[in-house]
């Protein structure tokens, strides 16, 4: 008699969950030393199940298929000269930002999942985290390959590792992961799976992916959708773990709430630059930051997920109202500040064209006309000195320059918070960032702040900073005066 094929659930239980064992050479506490570190109580680790029911066999088959699709597209880009098909090379300024922050971010996410897989004593979570750490490596490798192609033709892609490790702007994302990696395993899980994957990576990989497609950048279109398809599995892990922590013990509620408050705010701040990409850099625009925020964060997370969690006593993350208010403003703030820093960036900032302005006025009917268009007009004054003198002061927690406004006072009043700790004064861009510091001052005080280190001399002589960051002279400067722009215009004519 032929054996009946095992169902998905049985297969998963046999090949994943039931392969777990109890240690005999050491105690369980010795094997998982961080389980109690954060005060999270889980009574039955076997209650958790991964709804995706991934086994090694299905994982390898599905991922192999994804890789096959991706590499077919990537090779075609080389063959068909995809680097010339874009609406405008200005789109690549977004890719330069992406390569310098995301590659290192993906690699750190890989390490973070290894840490979670090692230290959370649930077979379902550990197995899911192992596959996810492999996913993250796949993302880094695919993205490096992708930028290899751009690097043959354009500036700003030749030294992403140095930009990622040393440049002042990339420090924002680096510090995000360093904070998560030095937290306990449950906080690490909330940081990556909730803060990034359930909430904010949608804006990076789905909205930005659609924008890449609209700008005929097939490479990023392909890489973003294949990357985000893994993130769907990661979201499930995040949601499963979040619910398990909440349901297992009422004592977990305040701890989980604190994780959610912290990592929602940290991820929100870290993604500010995505608003700049959607609203400014993209030559052809698909969705504004405001629209994307409403769809992916307000509808899906704040008014979707959190409605489901409120019966357990979980409320929306602290300062969510401020994030909703700021959706009108923050992309403009980032664009205005970056415009003044063309000498210290490895990509090309620029002022919006007439076409950009028309779109911005349509998408931001109130804030554009009353505030932000006026700020750009002021820059047109011939006496205006574009280059920002000196180094920007950065927030101790999120490490962005202190350029965000007081809540409710957009455009006119930069927010400024301080805390004193052991006789030292620390500076913050917002209440959200100040709260995070005040809760763990001895951790956050250790942050490596680029302007401070530059002044201390850690980064070598000031006149040699560009070299320290890995920059070539053609990397910076205004987009419309750049070699990239000139070349693209020239190549476009040849191709036409």
């Amino acid at each position: 008699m032929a054996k009946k094929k095992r169902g998905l659930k049985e297969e998963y239980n046999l090949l994943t969950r039931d392969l777990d064992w109890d240690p005999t050479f050491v105690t369980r506490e010795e094997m998982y030393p961080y389980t109690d570190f954060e005060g999270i109580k889980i009574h039955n680790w076997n209650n958790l199940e991964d709804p995706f029911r991934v086994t090694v066999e299905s994982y390898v088959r599905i991922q192999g298929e994804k890789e096959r699709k991706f590499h077919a597209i990537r090779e075609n880009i080389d063959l068909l000269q995809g680097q010339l098909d874009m609406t405008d090379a200005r789109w690549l300024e977004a890719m330069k930002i992406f390569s310098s922050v995301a590659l290192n971010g993906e690699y750190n996410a890989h390490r973070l999942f290894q840490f979670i897989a090692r230290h959370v004593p649930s077979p379902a979570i550990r197995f899911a985290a192992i596959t996810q750490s492999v996913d993250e490596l796949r993302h880094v490798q695919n993205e490096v390959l992708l930028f290899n192609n751009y690097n043959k033709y354009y500036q700003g892609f030749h030294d992403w590792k140095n930009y990622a490790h040393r440049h002042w702007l990339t420090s924002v994302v680096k510090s995000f992961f360093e904070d998560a990696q030095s937290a306990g395993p449950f906080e690490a899980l909330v940081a990556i799976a909730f803060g990034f994957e359930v909430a904010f990576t949608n804006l990076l990989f789905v909205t930005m992916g659609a924008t890449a497609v609209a700008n005929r950048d097939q490479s990023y279109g392909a890489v973003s959708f294949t990357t985000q398809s893994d993130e769907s599995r990661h979201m499930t892990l995040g949601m499963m773990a979040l619910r398990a922590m909440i349901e297992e013990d009422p004592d977990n509620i305040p701890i989980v709430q604190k994780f959610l408050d912290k990592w929602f705010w940290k991820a929100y701040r870290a993604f500010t630059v995505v608003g700049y990409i959607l609203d400014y850099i993209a030559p052809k625009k698909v969705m504004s930051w405001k629209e994307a925020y409403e769809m992916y964060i307000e509808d899906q997370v704040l008014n979707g997920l959190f409605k489901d969690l409120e019966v357990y006593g979980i409320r929306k993350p602290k300062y969510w109202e401020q994030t909703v208010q700021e959706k009108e403003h923050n992309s403009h703030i980032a664009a205005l500040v970056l415009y003044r820093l063309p000498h210290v960036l490895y990509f090309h900032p620029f002022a919006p064209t007439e076409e950009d302005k028309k779109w911005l006025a349509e998408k931001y009917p109130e804030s554009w006309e009353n505030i932000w268009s006026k700020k750009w007009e002021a820059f047109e004054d011939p006496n205006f000195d574009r280059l920002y003198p000196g180094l920007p002061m950065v927030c101790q927690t999120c490490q962005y320059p202190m350029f965000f406004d007081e809540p409710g006072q957009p455009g006119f009043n930069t927010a400024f918070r301080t805390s004193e700790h052991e006789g030292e004064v620390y500076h913050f861009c917002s209440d959200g960032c100040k709260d995070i510091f005040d809760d763990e001052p001895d951790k956050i005080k250790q942050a490596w702040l680029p302007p401070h280190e530059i002044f201390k001399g850690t980064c070598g002589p000031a006149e040699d900073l560009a070299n320290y960051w890995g920059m070539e002279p053609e990397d910076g400067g205004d987009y419309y005066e750049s070699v990239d722009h000139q070349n693209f215009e020239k190549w476009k004519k040849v191709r036409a």
Partner: protein
Amino acid sequence: MTQVNERNRYVGLDLTNCPESEAILEAIEQDNENVKITRFPGYVKVEAINRLVINKESVEEFLGDDWETEDLQLAVTSYYGFMADWDDEHIVLQWDNV
């Protein structure tokens, strides 16, 4: 017809453009009520109020080929709601506390 309000909320999937996604969309439209479809460059968002079911049998019918529920992973790029059930025959996405 259920209306979206304080408690009744959409759940949804973002599907990358590919032939399988079209079959999944048709299956969802056939097997669920209040389905909303929005197209974007490169992907499509499909949503239903509170609960969305994908049946293997329906997808296979529209695709005209074999399709395993785990193959959803090749098409789905993002989703929201809880994965309430996922077995060989169907996938259920829902909010639990409506």
